[in-house]
């Protein structure tokens, strides 16, 4: 099982909370509108400038706070493929994997700069920084979680499993 993602880096600091990722006042409206306000309290230009495949690199406690899955979904909707952080909020970490994003913990996150082009291999736990020509360790994802992310998240993963068990039942 391999899961390798490459993209351009956006850097954020410590304690980026779910209310900054998915502001409460937009929670009942259309999801696309909510996503447009993702991270605006810390970087008003993020949502309009982030590109498909980009990577977020952050400090400690990325995604702390609420269980609202929209915090992870907004990032995915905007095209973010991968999250690297010194540490994650526990519920957010589950949510990120569940919606099919790669999320890895790395104590070397601070060595990565805005705009760097990096490749994250979540299976082996290696981050390659092509801009700075460096490589760092990150925590690899265990095989069962990697399989889920590879399938695109928990829902397609369950869909696949349910289809397989139905086939077995028929067979």
């Amino acid at each position, binding site marked *: 099982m391999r899961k390798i993602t490459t993209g351009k880096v956006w850097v954020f600091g410590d*304690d980026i*909370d*779910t*209310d*900054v990722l998915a*502001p*409460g*006042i937009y*929670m*009942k*409206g259309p999801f696309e509108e909510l996503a447009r306000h993702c991270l605006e*309290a810390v970087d008003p230009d993020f949502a309009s400038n982030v590109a498909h495949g980009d990577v977020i690199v952050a400090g*400690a*406690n990325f995604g*702390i*706070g*609420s*269980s*609202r*899955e929209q915090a*992870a979904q907004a990032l995915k909707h905007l095209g973010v493929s991968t999250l690297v952080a010194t*540490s994650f*909020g*526990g*519920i957010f*970490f*589950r*949510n990120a994997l*569940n*919606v099919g994003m790669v999320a890895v913990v790395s104590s070397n996150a601070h060595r990565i700069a805005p705009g760097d082009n990096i490749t994250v291999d979540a299976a082996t736990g290696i981050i390659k920084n092509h801009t700075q020509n460096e490589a760092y360790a990150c925590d690899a994802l*265990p095989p*069962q*979680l990697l399989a889920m992310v590879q399938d695109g*998240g*928990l*829902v397609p993963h*369950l*869909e696949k499993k*349910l289809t397989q068990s139905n086939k077995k039942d028929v067979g």
Partner: protein
Amino acid sequence: MGLTLAEKIIARAARRDSVSPGEIVTCAVDLAMMHDSGGPRRVKPILERLNAKVWDIEKVVVVTDHYVPAVDAESAAILDLTRKWCAKNGVGNFYDMQGICHVVLPERGHLRPGMFVVGGDSHSPTGGAFGCFMFGVGATDMAGVLVTGEIWIRVPGTIRIDINGTLADGVSAKDIILHLCGRLGMGGGAYQVVQYTGDTIVGLSMTERMTLTNMAAELGAQAGLIAPDETTAANIRDAGGSPGDLSVWHGDADASYRATHAVDATQLGPHVAAPHSPANSAPVADHAGQAIQQAYIGACTGAKLEDLHMAARVLKGRGVASGVRLLIAPASTRITATAAADGTLSALTEAGAILMPTGCGACAGFGAGVLAEDEVCISSTARNFKGRMGAPSSRVYLASPYTVAASAIVGRIADPRDLLDGNT
């Protein structure tokens, strides 16, 4: 090697003799709790896509608390969808506008020691006050539970917080947890279990224990936990539940803890957490004199019956300062009814408090009572993230109901110890 209480509950749910921190295990879920925001409106499309039914509807509890009462067409539509989904799926445990989920769950006897419970809300660790392993999940995780009745977890280690001594009058569980947030930080719980032990805990009511486990979330813990005792059992029986055999649900004497932190309760005074993090907490003296426009007593953390009693001890016979609005949203309709019967509500409203509907309300910026640009609020809630309670430049200080009430009277952040029971 013995097991901690959390490890025992997880092992039982994983159908194993024992588990070790770091292992990934799949657990059978005893109860799944959802609310109107992250519940049916989010899981319905997933269940439809998977063409799947709920694994065991008797093990599902749904509560409307975030968008109640509806204030516009969007919130009304969310509530309508929730009610229809519950009716169609035969959800017997549906509490519509009866209170905030974390308070309603034990109030209606759904929790008992040893249960493995998931909640579709980040303050789900509250249930740990009843000796349950309860943690928050997002909507996709919840949908997975509803389909399979199971969920994977990485077995957490346990961080023990040993609290001893008697709290001074006017100092409460909220001050203990704000002290801990300042001391350990929002990452201090490291997505492990935070278990509270010590003679202070033994002496606390269930309401106060719930404040500690609730804000284990603000320590970054997966779950908060308190071993069950006679106080737990009595509370569960009063709620019409069955506590079961308590003797099973204790950590072994030789269990291994990731860390132990000691707290001397006798040394604690009122605490206040400054914007924009619960970790910015300090003794109230550090912020005394800060002018406020709003004081808020509400949410799962800070509007239980005992929280209202604390506020009433300060407010009775006094008046809210000019230029300050004091909003009080009791955490459940039963709490409102009890507080009406025992005279608490009249003490609050005669002092000038504005009684709000039961629900999550302004805490997360969902309901009525949100803040304008640059306004300052002192609140008995759990979180003061930037913009959470309203405009991005608004500022929220977190404190106990005593301190919120005292500040409402003075018009500035104030030490409640000088204002208890009509003292001047």
